[in-house]
């Protein structure tokens, strides 16, 4: 299995991207990163938020 985001409890993303994920309600460990090595960027988080079904009622 290749290493990547979420492996071994590690999230490879800057704190600013992780905060954005929390704001947008995105589970960052499940986001595929487009940055170097698979690092999750803010735009990855935004893209994940847009493609995510709206869970609010």
């Amino acid at each position, binding site marked *: *299995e*290749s*290493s*990547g985001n979420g*492996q*071994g*409890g*590690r*999230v*490879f*993303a*800057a*704190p600013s991207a*992780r*905060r954005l994920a*929390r*704001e947008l309600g995105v589970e960052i460990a499940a986001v595929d990163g487009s*940055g*170097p*090595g*698979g*690092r*999750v960027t803010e735009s990855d988080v935004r893209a994940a938020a847009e493609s995510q079904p709206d869970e609010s009622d």
Partner: protein
Amino acid sequence: MVVGDVTTGTEVLVIGAGPGGYVAAIRAGQLGLDVTLVEKDAYGGTCLNYGCIPSKALISATDVAHDAGDAEEMGIYADPAVDLQRMVEWKDGVVDQLTGGVEKLCKANGVNLVEGRAEFASEDTARVVHGGEGQGSETIEFEHAIVSTGSRPIEVPGFEFDGEHILSSREALALDAVPESMVVVGAGYIGMELSTVYQKLGCDVTVVEMLDDVLPGYEDDVARVVRERAEDLGVDFHFGQAADSWEEAGDGITVRTENEDGEIAEFGAEKCLVAVGRRPVTDTLNLEAVGLEPNEDGVLETDHEARTDVDHVFAVGDVAGEPMLAHTASAEGEVAAEVVAGEPAALDHQAIPAAVFTDPEIGTVGMTEDEADEAGFDPVVGQFPLRANGRALTLGEDEGFVRVVGDDDSGFLLGAQVVAPEASELIAELALAVEMGAQLEDVAATIHTHPTLSEAVGEACANALGKAIHTLNR
């Protein structure tokens, strides 16, 4: 209702003003919450009054004297005399400045300060008994509570702290004269920091430790650097020895230890410092009243928002368990305050650095090679010896190394172990790197100022990539 009892209300009640509690209170105040902070003893808690700050003050001051007395090679001839009482007074001045600052910052951020001991009275009230005779008490209604009551030293059976013969770290940081000799029970970080200080001050230190090396939990080669330096300073180590009993003997005491095979050894000394760990303070809070029960280690368990099993009660710092470190306490305190204020905060830190202020210092963050392996990564390791670092040589302190652990597939930096002068500062760059999800290459390609110790950080990362300049690459 007893005389002098009043009832007040608050949005957030914080119990305990250590680095967990006071930071939570200040942050809550910044976020516009009505917050009350109760402290029974001293602002700043263990950390500022009896822990981090006093120990680092004595370590640094001792080094000023010791280094000058040990520098003939550099052409420096000195025989410094140390007046420990005055050193401790200076340390107290540092503490006062910082605790005074904490009090001022709390007030400036609108925190209500209450002096006294708090315990829960119901799900949403706490009773505070004010310090001193006849000072009365009050009942505080709260919407949210943040428990930050910290920890206290564990006592070894038969070695109750008496402040005269058997000392805790707190008392060892406030002696008015250097003892001739001292037995230190426990070679964890507190025991090792204080053994080093006292040995450098001219005390004959003997360390007895149950396990087979200093600094359990640290890798062998890291611990070895610190142990060998302590041995060079004259500290006498006895491993595999459990403290058994003690008795007065002449002007001092005899400490008896027992090894695995039941063999008894005796160590004479003027004083004995017991430093075998710390335990959360949860027994004096009447936790049942709020519906909480600590786990078997006395810890209040919390989730990623620092929340306990009871929704409106949070726990931060030592009382919430390992790692029992001041900066963890503060980080948790900030998160708890932000969560109470409705912010999307979480304890999702990837990197909690830790430092040990021995000689040389240790700084660690993230995973070791073994941990990376267990977590399923393909670890690649880079290392750089301090003796190949120009700045270390100009400081006359060239023992130790910087080691970094990365993932070979992705290049991500997973952790680092530093044993070096200023390791506590060097770990900051590596913690940022781990926290940000940096790759080894990011650190290796960053220009490091010459001549600095931090060049060793860059080179260790370069070494992992097979392109260090000042050491041979594997």
